[in-house]
């Protein structure tokens, strides 16, 4: 009847998607420029900037970031599983404090967490030790909330009676964990892992403070290169580092069904 408000809504939604997708598409297009300038629309057509993006200068930080993100995701998950169980299942003194500290990085600006970690490491005399391990610690700190949260949510979503049912059918505590609890929360575990990976892979704030010159994540490398202006190489590189998490999430969604966690779909019945 009254199409006015609906049309307005359509325009707003279209604008939102335009602003989400537009920059990505423009960046992708810029990477095909013939010259060393970031023209849009691109002038001429060339793949040389893509070739450039695969030069050791860029592949090295890219691989470094991938490795760091993978390791961060694994460590954060390994710590996150017992933490999620503790928060979800048990009462212990100081629980609220421990939980706030664990989830804190979620609301603290990473910049602040980064500076704080840097200060802390210097004060306790490990300043010289800064580098890979400090970077890993920093990344685990900021990624841990993601794995803890998703695992805790999947634990919470599981009806308690399911574990009781397994116990009444003769399953001891370990068998309950192995055959019932764990398989049910596996999508949550992988979703948390994916979130941790992506958060680490895209982080720059923490890395800026903690990374040693020789060991630079790709985000820091891009940032430093930006001092010389935005080149088509960077555009190609940006698209590459955008595709990696996308592919990862798609693969996980395909094989473990983490879609429920990412897209808020209706859970299993």
């Amino acid at each position, binding site marked *: 009847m009254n199409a006015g408000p609906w049309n307005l809504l359509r325009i707003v939604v279209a604008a939102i998607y335009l602003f989400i997708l537009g920059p990505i598409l423009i960046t992708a297009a810029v990477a095909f420029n013939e010259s060393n300038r970031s023209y849009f629309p691109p002038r001429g057509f060339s793949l040389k900037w893509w070739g450039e993006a695969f030069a050791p200068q860029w592949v090295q930080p890219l691989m470094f970031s991938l490795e760091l993100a993978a390791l961060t995701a694994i460590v954060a998950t390994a710590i996150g599983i017992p933490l999620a169980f503790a928060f979800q299942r048990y009462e212990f003194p100081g629980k609220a404090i421990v939980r706030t500290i664990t989830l804190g990085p979620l609301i603290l600006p990473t910049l602040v967490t980064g500076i704080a970690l840097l200060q802390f490491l210097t004060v306790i005399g490990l300043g010289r030790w800064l580098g890979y391990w400090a970077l890993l610690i920093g990344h685990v700190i900021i990624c841990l909330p993601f794995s803890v949260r998703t695992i805790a949510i999947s634990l919470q979503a599981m009806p308690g009676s399911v574990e*009781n*049912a397994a116990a*009444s059918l003769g399953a001891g505590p370990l068998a309950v964990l192995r055959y019932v609890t764990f398989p049910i929360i596996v999508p949550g575990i992988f979703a948390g892992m994916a979130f941790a990976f992506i958060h680490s892979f895209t982080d720059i704030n923490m890395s800026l403070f903690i990374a040693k010159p020789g060991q630079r994540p790709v985000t820091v490398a891009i940032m430093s290169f930006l001092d010389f202006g935005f080149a088509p190489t960077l555009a190609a590189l940006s698209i590459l580092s955008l595709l990696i998490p996308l592919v990862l999430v798609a693969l996980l969604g395909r094989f473990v069904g983490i879609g429920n966690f990412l897209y808020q779909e209706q859970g299993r019945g």
Partner: protein
Amino acid sequence: MADPALRLQALVKRFGAHAAVDGIDLAVAPGEFVTLLGPSGCGKTTTLNLIAGFLMPDAGFIALNGKLVQDLPPFKRDLGMVFQDYALFPHMSVADNVAFGLKMRGVSREETSTRVAEALSLVKLDGFGARRPNQLSGGQRQRVALARALVIRPAMLLLDEPLSNLDLKLREEMRSEISSLQRRLGIATVFVTHDQGEALTMSDRIAVMSDGKIEQIGTPAEIYERPSTRFVASFIGSINIVPAKVAEVPVNGYARLETPAGPAIAQVGGAASGRSVMLTIRPERLKLAGAGGAPSGAVAWSARVGRVVYTGARLEVQLRLADGSEAMAEATNDGRINLAEGQGIVAWFRPEDAWVIAGA
């Protein structure tokens, strides 16, 4: 004498200062269907969880077939349990759900597949083995839960409000199905519900619970017709309760009573003369007649007709008794009842249809 399938003795479970289960004694005979009935918070589910081993009692004993189990964890108790929310394993097929208990017991692959097929057939779900729980309707899920609990041939069956998540029609269907299955298998069963209809139709005996205690235990007819307390009387069905005094020492189980609505004679347990008691009459046993229409030997009170509620097969007639208190009569709608609000009428009952309980 054979041991009962289940014996609870002086069972106590406290949560903080509150005793959720406050000294329960109960024996369930082999093959018997016993219902724990009560309002929410009465301790019936806590009692079931104590039997299953999900909770540990603070005091008392639980014996299954003569063996004390109160210190055993649930997985060593050999009980089949059906949960209110079915508690099917969402990541397993129907067949794997049913097979779970057998797998935990190390039953061979061939025997497992035979027994799973048998169990699914028992609950009329042949051919559903490959489905996932989320592809089933509520009723079908409940059947899978039942098959999963029965396939392990447990010492007894525990049912925790298994029908409360089903819609009305399905609930009645499952009610008779669970009953007939239980009878056929002859498995001792404890059933927890807040639904008196389920309790009355399915049980061999009902234990009515309130405040962590068993108020009364007996057959459905005993519970309905000879309630021992006011709580039991009013929790099951509707009932008229009239305060009364015992006028004479009871003879042959009948007592002469004085009530505000008029003198009465009623069946009595052990009430003595002069004591304040409660006279109870079920609405369907309170009859209506015109002046002088009550049969001889009946207790007849004069009353006025209040609202008449038409329910189809029956009429619910609200009455105002001589002292102004209200009562309800339920009459079969035989097409000949013609009542007007405010009309004078005689409400009568036979002494054997009225039952005296203790009370102030």
